[in-house]
């Protein structure tokens, strides 16, 4: 009790976040950037969701022409690209930005301006990608863009150029961000926080950041090769001219499979925070969760060709990648068992974050089982490239990642705003989401087994796929309602939500030791921790004491406009590269260099 009163004293008024729009353009504070990431990527989530609804409307009945096949191909390509690169990844980075420095007891990220640059590169990359819709045609070769369909012969619009370069931009942002997280986590933990006393969310972010560092170069190379092929007729992937179409797939999936873990490990981190707090127990198997996360990250680099069992690799290669893929299921099940065991003997507090965490464990498990069926080579030969895979990946990325994202949003919203999201509306949203999600994606398993390939814009009436498709379309609109309920909850709760103190959930980790929302500098004096659960085990006063050691209200907010300038310059250069317009390229590069020079010589 005493602890709560203490941490509230420094509460920062919500109004601070509404003072000036300009402030958001120059901020380098990790919490501001976290909020920017979360809100921008949620907007992309809504756009990608609308694309999903168009897909579902088109497929609701056979031979439908809601959109033309050309538009349909652009829509599903952008749906996948958006949800992976512009929503799931950046929103998780947003959580990490906001929460990791707080969990570490740090004042900010190691490189605040680099952090801002990462955000602006992501945002401009996304906007560049989306501008292709109005500039003659969006990308239309699927989110994994298999060559040679991406060549100028088969995809003559500039869509794929925008895709390659837009992905490249967001990829540069992700790489810089990953460097920032690794440095921050390794060097900026507060006094007493050894690696094995670090909170589990921060641990999973560390593994994720290392994955990004090693996976992203493969995608970067792939995107550059594709751009060179399209712009300068360098036939890297064109068989008739001596290229190799499979090269694209190896490079893409060498990125693409670790990417799946980049999207799920932070989700594991969120669940590993939420489950113990709402079970009112310490996490069961703290070390096992860390080691299994590291194992997943490492093994994640050895399984990429399980996306390629039908391209005609040798049976031996298929067997090896199949074995590796199955081994990954072991550390994954360890995590699930540990979460379930954490609930055992606890006193469950079934608030919305916990509902979403339970939903996550249940839905993700189904995705895991379908993953094992896909990891066996013979079954994969039948069901790969069908709706069975669409079902599988949505159970992992929606039932998994998106449920965890909502768990995180409900869990940390009070920390970010000083107000709770409504519990009643939250429970309503949860049940709509569970119902809509399963109605949409469960029947897709069956459709795949019935022979419905993925990425077809329509199907004949004499197939037996129509009824299930109609059901799925209804389900997708129930999901849309659930997202609408969430937005309503945010709108209501921002203004009239129940006020939250610094530690509204009785949390275990340091982000709950400061006020909600935290002051710009987080901690006045670095707290000292002696255990993995500083707020549970230590005399709460000692944590708070550090916090109030000195009067720090006059610590200046540091800002910089140059991260924005650098990202803007790269965006301008990208348009020049798409249209091969040298003046624009030079202008963009000039702006970019001006930004870098500014960063270097900016007085700090």
């Amino acid at each position, binding site marked *: 009790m005493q602890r709560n009163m203490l941490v509230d004293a420094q509460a920062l008024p919500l109004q601070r976040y509404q003072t000036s729009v300009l402030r958001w353009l120059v901020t380098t504070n990790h919490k501001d950037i976290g909020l920017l990431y979360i809100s921008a990527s949620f907007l992309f989530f809504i756009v990608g969701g609308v694309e999903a609804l168009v897909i579902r409307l088109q497929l609701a009945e056979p031979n439908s022409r809601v959109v033309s096949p050309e538009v349909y191909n652009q829509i599903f390509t952008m749906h996948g690209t958006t949800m992976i690169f512009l929503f799931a990844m950046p929103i998780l980075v947003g959580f990490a930005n906001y929460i990791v420095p707080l969990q570490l007891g740090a004042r900010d990220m190691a490189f605040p301006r680099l952090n801002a640059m990462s955000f602006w590169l992501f945002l401009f990359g996304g906007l560049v990608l989306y501008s292709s819709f109005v500039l003659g045609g969006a990308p239309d070769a699927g989110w994994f863009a*298999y060559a040679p369909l991406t060549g100028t012969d088969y995809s003559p619009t500039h869509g794929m150029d925008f895709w390659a370069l837009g992905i490249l931009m967001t990829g540069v942002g992700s790489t810089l961000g990953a460097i920032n997280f690794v440095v921050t986590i390794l060097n900026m933990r507060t006094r007493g926080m050894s690696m094995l006393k670090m909170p589990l969310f921060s641990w999973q972010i560390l593994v994720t950041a290392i994955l990004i560092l090693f996976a992203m170069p493969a995608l970067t190379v792939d995107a550059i090769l594709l751009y060179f092929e399209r712009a300068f007729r360098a036939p890297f992937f064109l068989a008739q001219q001596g290229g190799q179409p499979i090269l694209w797939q190896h490079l893409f999936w060498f990125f693409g499979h670790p990417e799946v873990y980049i999207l799920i490990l932070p989700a594991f981190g969120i669940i590993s925070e939420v489950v113990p707090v709402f079970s009112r*127990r310490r996490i069961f198997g703290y070390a096992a969760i860390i080691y299994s996360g590291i194992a997943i990250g490492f093994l994640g680099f050895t399984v990429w060709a399980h996306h390629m069992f039908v391209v005609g690799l040798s049976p031996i290669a298929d067997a090896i990648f199949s074995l590796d893929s199955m081994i990954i299921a*072991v550390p994954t099940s*360890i995590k699930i068992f540990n979460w379930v065991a954490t609930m055992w*003997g606890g006193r469950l507090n079934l608030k919305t974050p916990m509902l979403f965490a339970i939903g996550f*464990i249940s839905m993700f498990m189904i995705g895991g089982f379908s993953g094992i069926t896909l990891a066996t080579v013979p079954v994969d030969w039948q069901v790969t*490239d069908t709706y069975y895979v669409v079902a599988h990946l949505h159970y992992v990325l929606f039932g998994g990642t998106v449920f965890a994202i909502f768990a995180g949003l409900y869990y940390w919203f009070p920390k970010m705003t000083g107000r709770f999201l409504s519990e009643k509306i939250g429970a309503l949203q949860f049940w709509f989401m569970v119902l809509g999600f399963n109605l949409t994606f469960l029947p897709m398993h069956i459709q795949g*087994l*019935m022979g419905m390939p993925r990425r077809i814009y329509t199907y004949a009436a004499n197939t037996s796929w129509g009824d299930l498709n109609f059901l799925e379309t209804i389900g997708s609109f129930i999901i849309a309602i659930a997202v609408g309920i969430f937005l309503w909850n945010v709108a209501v709760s921002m203004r009239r939500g129940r006020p939250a103190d610094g530690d509204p959930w009785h949390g275990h980790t340091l982000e709950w030791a400061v006020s909600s929302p935290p002051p710009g500098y987080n901690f006045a004096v670095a707290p000292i921790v002696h255990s993995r659960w500083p707020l549970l085990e230590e005399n709460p006063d000692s944590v708070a004491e550090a916090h109030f050691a000195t009067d720090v209200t006059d610590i200046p907010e540091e800002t910089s406009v140059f991260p924005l300038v650098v990202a803007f310059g790269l965006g301008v250069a990208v348009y020049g590269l798409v249209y091969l317009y040298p003046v624009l390229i030079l202008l963009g590069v000039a702006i970019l260099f001006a930004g870098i020079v500014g960063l270097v010589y900016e007085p700090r």
Partner: protein
Amino acid sequence: MLSFVRATRPALLLILISALALAGCESVFTPISPQAQSIANLATILFVVAGLVFVVVEGTLLYFVLRFSRGRPAGETAEVETKNERRIEIAWTAAPAVVLAIVFIVSMVILRFLVTQPAAPGMGAAASAQTLNVRVVAHQWWWEFDYPDLGIVTANEMHAPVGATLLVSVESADVIHSFWSPVLGGKIDAIPGQINRTIYTVTKVGDYGGQCSEFCGVDHAFMLFRVIVEPRAQFDSWVRQQQAPAATMTGHAASGEQMFMNGACIGCHTINGTIARGTLGPNLTHFASRGTFAGSTQQNTRDNIVKWLEDPQALKSGNLMPNLHLTPDQIQALADYLESLR
């Protein structure tokens, strides 16, 4: 939390209904080859094992949710002394590892079966009579089926005698496609610059569906084919018919033929024994013997042929055949010609 149980009930019902629907139509679970049968068996084993494990783990989870969320005083953190934590961790690491090891070994046994050509009952001539080489060339957006040993080139319909082992080689003329009929067995990609091989032994007479399953552009949805498995005698007569030269034309059909040979048609299509040797489009030598056309999306009727010639894009938008702006008379003559190519 009981509401969760209630909410899952319609889902279970849904699965049941879908399973019934699945039983009534072509699917992975209606195999016509030992290859597809073995995959169906493996899938069944996996679904049963996964289902059992899911029921146990999810049941435990929901039991904990029900058991530990009610009737207990709210308050500070509950602490339960957990003895033998290490032993528990080892146990639940080993358990999935053992199950997965078994699954992996079973799947490898089946993989070995799938990539091995089944031994023919006899040797020499008898053996070769039981195998049939088929070369599949995928095009945007139709399928070419060649029988190199029989000198046959056809499109969108793969004929095979019941009991034969098909040694299928798959190539692509443009982008990546994937050759798949769920009743035959696993799919295999058609990749430019590469020849992939697969094996199916067809054991049941019938007319089955298949479709491209790797996204290949605008008409990916309409790149279908038929697998026609027939008794030996019927297949042999089909072979004789396909090997025969193109029919001799009389009357309207002859003027249609003339138009075909003088027009743009020969740039893309082949009619054996004539000057028409184009290879961009399907070989039309025995066009009228096929049940469907246009990537197996249209029934081969007079009506559809006329519609197709009026505007190929109207029946199947995006396909590579241009609208030749033919007059109604020309269309009738060409339709007569095409219908005579038996």
